[in-house]
């Protein structure tokens, strides 16, 4: 019966959100158009991150590395080689994907908390490389003057450009999560061991997913540089790696749009708080503690409290009991 629902009935939430997003610039001042552009970019970042977290059941605490690689690829190509913005986007996805391939090769050998440790460490590795490779990346000065073309220069056109790219990317990611591959990810999340015994090379699938996630993180980063007109090494730092984690947790990692909802809340809060204090990390830290303590499962989790999330089982499958049924 579930499957007979009409298209609109099934996709009303994203459709409503998309229509609101289309109408927004007409209704709000340009400062808030900036904020919404940021929401979309970070929302894509969080959705891409959630491929690993919500779907595969592993917690990557280093996705900012691929976001940063994407941002720097676009930045360098635009500033040093005068490439047009649109041409840099696919290249950014490829470079971020290559980065994810190299580092993910090691990460997918581990599960659970060990996976997290390694992603944190490799995230910082990328940060250090970008930070110290002064001649190429500008070191801690970052790259300035990443200007989008004239037709995208002001806030509203860039917002619409971002909206289109993020929407297309989200639809592709959604298709991936609904494909047999996406269900294999859920299977790995639910029961890694069983998935091996139905003949699936779990490490290889995890690596592929890691690469896909890295590519879309890179795309989000690529949108960021021209939006902000500059990139800095902080984009790949540990603080920024925590952002999508928190967004996904706040919005609800078991719903496709959860991370995007998390991005709306988080980015709004950021825009609001940074208006009157420089101590955003302090405030966000306190918010994180309250959210984690008081609403596990996120916004969608609270909504569905009585249903899906009631049977509380760990998302991560990292600490599998090794000897299940050994006589």
């Amino acid at each position, binding site marked *: 019966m579930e499957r007979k629902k009409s298209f609109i009935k099934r996709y009303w939430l994203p459709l409503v959100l998309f229509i609101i997003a289309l109408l927004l610039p007409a209704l709000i001042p340009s400062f808030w158009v900036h904020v919404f552009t940021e929401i979309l970019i970070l929302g894509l970042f969080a959705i891409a991150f959630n491929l690993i977290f919500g779907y595969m059941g592993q917690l990557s605490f280093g996705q900012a590395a691929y976001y940063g690689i994407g941002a720097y690829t676009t930045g360098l190509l635009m500033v040093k080689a005068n490439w047009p913005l649109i041409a840099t986007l696919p290249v950014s996805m490829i470079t971020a994907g290559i980065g994810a391939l190299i580092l993910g090769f090691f990460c997918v050998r581990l599960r659970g908390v060990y996976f997290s440790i390694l992603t944190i460490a490799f995230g910082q590795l990328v940060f250090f490389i970008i930070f110290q490779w002064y001649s190429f990346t500008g070191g801690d000065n970052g790259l300035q003057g990443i200007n989008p073309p004239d037709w995208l220069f002001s806030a509203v056109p860039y917002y619409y450009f971002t909206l289109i790219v993020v929407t297309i990317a989200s639809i592709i990611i959604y298709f991936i999560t609904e494909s*047999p591959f996406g269900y*294999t990810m859920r299977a790995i999340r639910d*029961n890694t061991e*069983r998935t091996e015994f139905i003949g*699936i*090379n779990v490490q290889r699938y995890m690596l592929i997913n890691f690469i896909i996630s890295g590519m879309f993180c890179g795309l989000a980063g690529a949108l960021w540089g021209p939006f902000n007109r500059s990139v800095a090494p902080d984009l790949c730092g540990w603080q920024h790696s925590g952002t999508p984690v928190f967004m996904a947790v706040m919005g609800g990692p078991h719903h496709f749009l959860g991370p995007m909802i998390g991005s709306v809340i988080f980015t709004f809060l950021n825009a609001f708080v940074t208006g009157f204090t420089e101590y955003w990390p302090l405030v966000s830290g306190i918010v994180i503690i309250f959210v984690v303590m008081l609403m596990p499962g996120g916004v969608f989790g609270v909504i569905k409290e009585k249903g899906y999330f009631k049977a509380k089982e760990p998302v991560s499958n990292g600490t599998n009991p090794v000897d299940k049924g*050994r*006589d």
Partner: protein
Amino acid sequence: MNNSVILKTEHLSKSFFKYQVLTDVNYELKKGEIAAIIGPNGAGKTTFFNLITGYHTVSGGHVFFRGQEITNWQRHKIARIGITRAFQISNIYPKLTTYENVRQSILAQQKRTLNLLTPAEKMAKQETLELLEVTGLANLKDTEAGILSQGDKKKLELALALACKPALLLLDEPTAGMSSEETHETMELVKRLNKEVGLTILFTEHDISVIFGYAEKLSVLHQGILVAEGTPEEVRQNKEAQACYLGEEI
């Protein structure tokens, strides 16, 4: 090596740290056979399965499948070559529905899991529904697998294994947790698969009626050593087997 031998182990041994769990097991299973391994708890039955399917690394000895050595292969490769197992404690995907559980296994068998862009719900509909029908789970297809009853979880466990279309099926206490009616249904299904499709089946079981009702060949494991082997009748007469396991129960 004889072609009709599907599974063969030579001097198969396993120790966990200093505990010897399985010692020098030489075992042969012919294609199309339905055989059981019996023995008291801790005899090493599950460990034997674990070594064949690559769950644990082998400490000593060899495993051959259709004459090819598969000792210490990766688990997914062993599954791909045609050995599938159903676990003693049901080992399913608790957050997916029963239907999605089975479809996952079918899609893996059909090597379609690398497909990134076709919606999974459009794929393998027919096969999934058929298998759910065969295993008696059709009316539960939209239930989240984590909340199924123990007996239904075991059926699903069997369905996941069957979906892999194995040549050799290892069943670890397939009927544990089932009612006597369910036990009978399940074992009839297993028998039918053996007779009609020619599936080779090796199972462990505690239920004496199941063992003697369905197995054509029995092997008795005791403290990790294979002590007796033969038809059910031969084993019934075997002194050693009686001493360590069957004695008072028959």
